[in-house]
């Protein structure tokens, strides 16, 4: 009995001790209040005010803020009262204009990022989930290839984390709009995952999802299960190692390239791309396989001297199946299925390519072909 009593007191003592250490819930928007909640009125105040590693719950509503995150945390949209969209927008009711807040170290281009993750200290992941970032009305002034870009979400060098179930939309900016931009130019390797997110209606010269590093790549990005439409000049730009897998990319017809693979150690697999000028463009990748490409001008375009095996892809309703731009490539092209194409292997100067299944192809291997 006395031993039981001692045990009982010990448990009580432990509970009392641990009470002050109980995790508080950090919340923005006022939908959850009372004991256990710490409320913030803006996301910007929350991401600065919470301890490192915290989770911040964001209530449904509109948040006109430019958010800069510099410590590891999770920013999470929650549902309340029949609504489940927490949206970060451009138009600040106080009239503060969107400001340039980061320069890309991979392109040298200044950016106006709506949600910027940089200089994260202490080191640790920054996770975004269930949030919408809407770029409607956002402008950086002039739009040309080297001018400033508008980015919905920007992970700067030295940062890592996961973007999951996020929506990035309407980063138009006269064409220079980017949905999600992640990059690393540091020597220290970083890992960023972008998954299950909806990215649509970005600028016609922009990129819906871009992952960039220098050579050799110090960024490992996983871009998977995302849905893109009306997704800019390039849907997904993979200039970093990692994977681009299981994404669905549809354009309303103005998009140039669905997926641009341009890094060693990059696998592009099981993506579905429709209604692009070209489905996949490759300069460098470790493998491109099992993608489904349809209603595209060219299914797969190879930069001259591209290095990549291309296998088990299916392409239908295309102008050209594979366009080699009169260059040579290194890597097997095998097990692909091509149905309904004007040209199969276009602008290819090498010996005939075998080991693929071709159906309904007007010309199998034209040395000179106009690929739409």
């Amino acid at each position: 009995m006395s031993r039981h009593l001692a045990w009982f007191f010990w448990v009580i003592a432990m509970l009392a001790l641990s009470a002050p250490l109980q995790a508080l819930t950090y919340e923005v928007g006022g939908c959850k209040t009372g004991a256990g909640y710490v409320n913030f009125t803006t996301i910007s105040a929350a991401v600065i005010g919470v301890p490192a590693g915290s989770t911040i719950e964001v209530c449904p509503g509109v948040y006109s803020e430019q958010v800069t995150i510099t410590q590891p945390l999770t920013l999470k949209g929650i549902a309340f009262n029949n609504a489940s969209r927490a949206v970060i927008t451009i138009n600040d009711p106080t009239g503060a204009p969107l400001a340039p807040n980061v320069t890309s170290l991979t392109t040298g281009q200044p950016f106006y990022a709506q949600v910027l993750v940089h200089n994260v200290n202490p080191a640790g992941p920054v996770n975004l989930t269930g949030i919408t970032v809407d770029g409607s009305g956002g402008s950086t002034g002039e739009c040309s290839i080297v001018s400033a870009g508008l980015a919905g979400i920007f992970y700067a060098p030295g940062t890592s984390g996961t973007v999951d179930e996020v929506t990035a939309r309407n980063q138009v900016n006269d064409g220079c709009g980017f949905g999600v931009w992640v990059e690393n130019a540091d020597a220290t390797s970083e890992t960023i995952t972008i998954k299950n997110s909806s990215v649509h209606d970005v600028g016609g010269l922009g990129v819906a999802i871009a992952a960039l590093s220098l050579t050799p790549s110090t960024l490992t990005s996983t871009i998977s299960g995302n849905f893109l439409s009306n997704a800019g000049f390039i849907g997904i730009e993979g200039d970093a190692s990692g994977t681009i897998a299981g994404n669905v990319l549809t354009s309303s017809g103005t998009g140039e390239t669905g997926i641009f693979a341009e890094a060693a150690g990059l696998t592009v697999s099981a993506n579905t791309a429709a209604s692009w000028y070209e489905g996949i463009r490759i300069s460098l990748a470790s493998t491109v396989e099992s993608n489904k490409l349809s209603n595209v001008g060219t299914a797969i375009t190879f930069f001259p001297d591209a290095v990549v095996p291309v296998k088990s892809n299916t392409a239908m309703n295309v102008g050209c199946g594979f366009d080699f731009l009169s260059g040579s490539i290194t890597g097997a092209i095998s097990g692909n299925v091509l149905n309904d194409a004007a040209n199969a292997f276009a602008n290819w100067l090498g010996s005939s390519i075998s080991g693929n299944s071709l159906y309904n192809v007007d010309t199998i291997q034209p040395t000179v072909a106009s690929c739409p």
Partner: protein
Amino acid sequence: MYKHRILLLLMAATMIASRPAQAKSYEVGGCNPSLPEFPTIQMAVSSVPPESTILVCPGTYFEQVIISQPLTLKGADINNLDRPVIAAPPNGLAINVTSITGAQVAAQVLVENVTPPGNVVLTGITVDGSLAEVPLSCPPAALAGIFYASGSSGTINDMTTRDQKLASCGYGIWLENGAGPNQTITVENNSVHDMSSAGILAQSNQTPPTLTATIQGNFVNSLNYNQTTDIEVFGILGAITGNVVTGGLVGITNAGTDASPVTISENAVAGISIGVGMSFGDGSKVTSNKISNVYTAFFFGGSGVSPGPTVTANTTQNTTYVINYNCIPNVTVKSNTFNDSEFGFLQIPPENSGLGVNAIDNIDTVQTSSCP
């Protein structure tokens, strides 16, 4: 040694005896001089022994083809060319079949009254309706690229059907069965695009259904023309799996009777007004589809008998409405992921909210307009 010689003689005798029953090959178009040649596809399909294989050389065949015996019609490649095209004859198409719906159909390739019973296999050929003229207006007339009429079975694979555009009555592939023995048809890996009504239609007017169709791995696209429905099944059994469906008004629809359950799985549906429409077809399973950039992802109709359709493990993104229950009871919606929608659930029957059993992110208004 003696026993071996007997065995050898026996084998030789068996081979000689079996030779007359072996399927023979024939060709149309003159690209394979080693095979008996026919000048037209129609002459070949009418003249060869049942179960023969007919190779069709690259070129354009201005014919309306009727097949009424089991055989394989297969596109061949030669000299860098790989597209045999069946195109409408310059003097127009004839109405050659009356559908179980009463429609007067001009079918470019018609399979009917197959005797002896057996499979008709079509592979690697393009059926082009762009120049089709039909001697009746729509309705009651309709134009079909490929039509499998009552009492026919087989496989349609690696075909292309395109530009069947008779007013609003153009169909790429049309399968049907009325009273009589159950028929089984597989439609796989085809490119179907630019129809004015449905890309692929499969229907039966019998209860229980007399048609089992497997529709898989097809690419159906109508961005260049307002195809009403990409894949439409009505009162049949079977599966619609792994198709890529883009453009048009309705992506995949299952209608007909209460006793026509169909599995709709692993399709990618994008750029459409209604992604998957289910009216009747109770007991159907809608699972693991990816639906994006649509106005309404799921729409239900029908009598609402139990068990109704089950919608699980699908992902929708970038929609205006996720589910319009249309006040239909007994619809089960669970374990799906819905991201980025203006509205979640519309016209919700009292017992089915869809809440709490699906992952929901970035939805402005989760529930709207309940039913009495």
